[in-house]
């Protein structure tokens, strides 16, 4: 099962991305693209003339995708949650390195914003993982899934993660790192064709990764886990539609003053009380 989930992850992610685009369009009273549009995009990208600004930059896009896939594999094989988060952050870090290596102001500013977003999001992710540990007594995903649901005992941690989700997925209001109308996609701007395909698919894997984290709050209650993941997905799509992008400084302020405080409170409640 772990193998199948890991191998199917890009396809599941593509479908999820297709559903998101469709849902977003319907929220805006539009027809929206077909459900399989992300896959049509992939075919189109693979047909494009191969171009790159330099080899290192292009290769980092592929390694970024590989790291995102490894992060998911750690989760699906029931591995250590902290290790999975490490690979997820490594994936983001590799895209930042790629962004810095391009001689483009948009790419470099996007990379720096991405870095600042990580600085605000990483503590929340780590503290959420510690919340799982406090409840299940282990960082192993397999142990967390065998323990009773941690939603109520770690409700503050869940709230913190929910607030951080748009940032992790670069969705509005925390999409300053991409800022299409402002910095033209940030660190991703210089990728094209098959190299952009890797970056594009990594986004799908990121979606699966973060909603799997939400799913873990259901513990051994599969139905609760699925309900939480679907609810979180709808919340993120709604927030993306209904909110405007905040400045990167406000993003850091909001994430530290609300999400981090909630995650820290969850830790205090779990350890001290």
């Amino acid at each position, binding site marked *: 099962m772990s193998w199948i989930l890991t191998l199917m992850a890009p396809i599941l992610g593509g479908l999820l991305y297709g559903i998101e685009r469709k849902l977003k369009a319907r929220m805006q009273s539009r027809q929206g693209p077909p459900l399989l549009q992300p896959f049509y995009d992939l075919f189109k990208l693979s047909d494009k003339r191969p171009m790159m600004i330099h*080899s290192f930059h292009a290769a980092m896009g592929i390694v970024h995708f590989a790291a995102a896939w490894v992060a998911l594999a750690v989760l699906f094989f029931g591995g250590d949650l*902290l290790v999975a988060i490490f690979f997820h952050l490594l994936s983001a870090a590799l895209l930042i390195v790629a962004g810095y290596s391009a001689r483009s102001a948009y790419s*470099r500013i996007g990379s720096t914003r991405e870095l600042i977003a990580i600085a605000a999001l990483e503590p929340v992710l780590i503290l959420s993982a510690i919340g799982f540990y406090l409840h299940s007594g282990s960082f192993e995903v397999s142990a967390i899934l065998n323990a009773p649901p941690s939603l109520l005992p770690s409700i503050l941690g869940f709230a913190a993660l929910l607030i951080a989700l748009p940032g992790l997925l670069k969705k509005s209001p925390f999409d300053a790192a991409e800022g299409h109308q402002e910095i033209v996609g940030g660190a991703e701007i210089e990728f094209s064709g098959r190299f952009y395909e890797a970056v594009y698919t990594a986004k799908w894997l990121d979606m699966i990764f973060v909603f799997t984290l939400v799913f873990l709050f259901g513990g051994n209650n599969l139905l609760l886990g699925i309900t939480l993941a679907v609810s979180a997905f709808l919340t993120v799509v709604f927030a993306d539609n209904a909110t405007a992008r905040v400045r990167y400084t406000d993003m850091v302020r909001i994430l530290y003053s609300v999400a981090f405080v909630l995650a*820290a409170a969850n830790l205090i409640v779990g350890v001290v009380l």
Partner: protein
Amino acid sequence: MLVVLGFVSIALPPFGVFFAKWLVYEGGNGAGGVTTVILLLFIAVGSVALTLLYFKTIGRFLTDGAAQREKEDYRYLIPPAILGVLLLVFALFISVAMGGFFRETAADIVLNPVPVWGDKGGIILPFGQIKLWHILAAFFLLGIAPLLAAIFRFKGVDRVMPYTCGERIETDAYSFYFDPAGKIESFANLLSLVLFLLVILAGAFNL
């Protein structure tokens, strides 16, 4: 090359960056009570500050053409090359080292048994484990892939100029958002000094 080797040395498992943090997080949970809360919050925020510092340097290296063109005498490569080889050896055989020498040495220092075991090429702690394939994957993604990417070139791919909205300007944007950090530099220095002294005092009085 020096910079790349340097960063590889602080990034590779099992000593570098996230893997070192992993050991501290897992170990920190064993402390219990308020100590655990303070420890974990400090690590969570402190590690982020450290990541920013790394990237400030990486950003400078990748965006500064002069730094990339700089040619050093090959002898400067010897110490980091030795370090790189040792890291490679320790990363691949961490299970043996951690399960034997490191654990015994650490136990002698803290005067208590250290709950770390090596198993099938990985590391086991009471709350979780790093498997061999995690170490190998990190090793490839952090060390080998960037080095290969820096050395080899894609064939049959056209090279193009970056997109600049049609403007021909040189930019120096890598540290744009770090500049405001200068305002809190004195405070950060003072805080780190106080924390450093606290570590010495805690060690001296066995707290």
